[in-house]
């Protein structure tokens, strides 16, 4: 176990800089998810920590050691790849014992460690099989076993669940989390799926275009995103955005079709803003202002109803925790609690505390 500290990390491929000076610290034993759209540089950070790419500038520490110029094999890390990267010609047991063999451990010791790990992961019946004889989920477990068996200081996961089907992914998510609780090894987990990040991580790092957008606990990101990008990226279904204007001294925020929202703190604002609405904050009844909404599409899942609707010439998503049957194209009144609304500066995207 160790902390991982990243200081002003930059990486260029040729003339193109893909990481623009990233800094953050991963506490000992934490599960950190790096999340962001494709090409945001999250995998690059992971590969730099692993030593698979050369650092252009900046520093990476694992524990107290500066590892910039340390060979991957001497960093005491383990990595799980998206395509599992199991050695196709070796059995499950040989795959898992590969790193221990390289550490020149005795045969008995390797066997014991592999068996123990295989039992934790429930693959102890598969030890003599080849990777091609395993299902996707089993391969995933073996790949994790290969990482766990050597008891590294840091685990690196590069989108490990994205090749699994939806149901198995949910199951593996829980298993991975349980495994982390048991081993308490510092973990860096790269994913483009914000649900994985939200459900598994202690700390989520949101990235965009090689920059750090926000670092925080999952629910803090959800409740108080620093900007419109984070607000839109975290949460599923995603937050809806509407343009609105207000004048100095007026506590009313006016939408493009003239409907208004009011909150005393709006009086301090003046100009154009972007309103952010979480799907669950638009409700059928309760406290707040009433709005006319046109229903454009409806998806019933049994326990919930997801509506795609038009509000003030923009699309909004509404998530109801109940069944709601309404004709498509119909206009319906919904309630929005001003306390739950997020407000963003339209120009900079920065969230405004109200």
């Amino acid at each position, binding site marked *: 176990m160790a902390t991982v500290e990243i200081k002003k990390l930059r990486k260029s491929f040729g003339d193109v800089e893909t990481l623009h000076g990233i800094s953050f610290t991963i506490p000992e034993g934490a599960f950190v998810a790096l999340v962001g759209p494709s090409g945001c540089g999250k995998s690059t950070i992971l590969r730099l920590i692993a030593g698979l790419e050369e650092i252009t500038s900046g520093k990476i520490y694992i524990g107290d050691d500066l590892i910039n110029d340390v060979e991957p094999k001497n960093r005491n890390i383990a990595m799980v*790849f998206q395509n599992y*990267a199991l*050695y196709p*010609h070796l059995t499950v047991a040989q795959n898992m014992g590969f790193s221990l063999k390289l550490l020149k451990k005795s045969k008995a010791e390797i066997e014991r460690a592999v068996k123990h790990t295989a039992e934790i992961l429930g693959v102890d019946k598969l030890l003599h099989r080849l990777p091609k004889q395993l299902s996707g989920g089993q391969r995933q477990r073996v790949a994790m076993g290969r990482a766990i068996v050597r008891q590294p200081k840091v685990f690196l996961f590069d989108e490990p669940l994205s090749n699994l089907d939806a149901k198995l992914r949910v199951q593996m998510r829980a298993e991975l989390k349980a495994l982390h609780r048991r081993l308490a090894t510092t973990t860096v987990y790269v994913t483009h799926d914000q649900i994985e990040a939200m459900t598994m991580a202690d700390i989520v790092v949101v990235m965009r275009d090689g920059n750090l957008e926000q670092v925080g606990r999952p629910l803090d990101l959800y409740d108080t995103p620093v900007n419109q990008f984070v607000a839109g990226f975290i949460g599923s279904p995603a937050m809806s955005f509407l343009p609105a204007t207000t004048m100095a001294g007026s506590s009313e925020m006016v939408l493009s079709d003239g409907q208004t929202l009011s909150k005393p703190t709006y009086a301090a604002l003046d100009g154009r803003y972007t309103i952010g609405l979480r799907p669950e904050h638009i409700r059928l009844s309760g406290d707040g202002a009433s709005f006319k909404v046109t229903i454009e599409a409806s998806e019933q899942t049994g326990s919930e109803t997801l509506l795609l609707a038009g509000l003030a010439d923009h699309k909004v998503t509404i998530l109801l925790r109940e069944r709601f049957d309404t004709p498509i194209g119909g206009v319906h009144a919904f309630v929005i609690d001003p306390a739950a609304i997020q407000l963003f500066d339209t120009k900079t995207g920065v969230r405004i505390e109200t």
Partner: protein
Amino acid sequence: MSANARVRRSNFLLDVTLFVICILLLTPLILLIANGFKTPQEMLVWPPTLFPKDPTLQNFHKVFTETPLLRWMFNSLTFAILSTIAIVATSALAGYIVGKFPFRTVNVIFILFLATAIIPFEVYMIPLYFQVKALGLLNSVGGLLIGYLVMSFGIFLIRQNVIASIPDELLEAARIDGAGELWIFWYVVLPLLRGPLAALAVLAFFQAWTTFAWPIIVMTRKTSFTIEVGLANFQSAYTIDLSLLSAASAAVMVPSVLAFVLLRRNFVEGIAASGMKE
């Protein structure tokens, strides 16, 4: 005619066609073997007999006692095996490097490898001969091998296989697991290239076994001939006695056919991989 009957009819036509082609291909071979067992008188009979009326082993006896045929076969075998080992080794190493380490210099070297493939051997045969002569390697396996240590097509074949079947992550996983580069090559890359390397080995072996122009200019002593050179030499010395040549050729075919039967699958893979038959 029903569809079923049509399929049956076309299958039958296909069988007949293949059978006829098969006969056409096999007849000269059978005739060659048969000739080895014929007396000189029967050799000249027209039309030629497919099966000798009065089979004799005399031709074979004469060939093995009067010419160093076994020696030639041994020379060819030594040359072919050493050439195969060298080509497999150089192709595996170079193919892996050009496939997985795409630095600019490596790419330039790869293009140079490919460029050698478009220069016909005949162009540099003579200069190479003088070099081998200067090195004092005439009439030795060493001299014979000089042109047959590297095969540009082999490097290309292995490179394509490396790119197609060995993902980068596998090498990266091994690096993180603590493996050095040579270790990775030996324990991860080579086992995964077993199929293409076996196919390449078959190609390389037969290339060396059947080569003619280079051995005939570097091997001038009768005892150091390869089998191809020996057979050619035979022909000019014994033009009248066709039965002796037939017997020698038939004897020489034995190891080739044996090797083909044993390595049939690799052979087919090799031809499929190269997309050509020489």
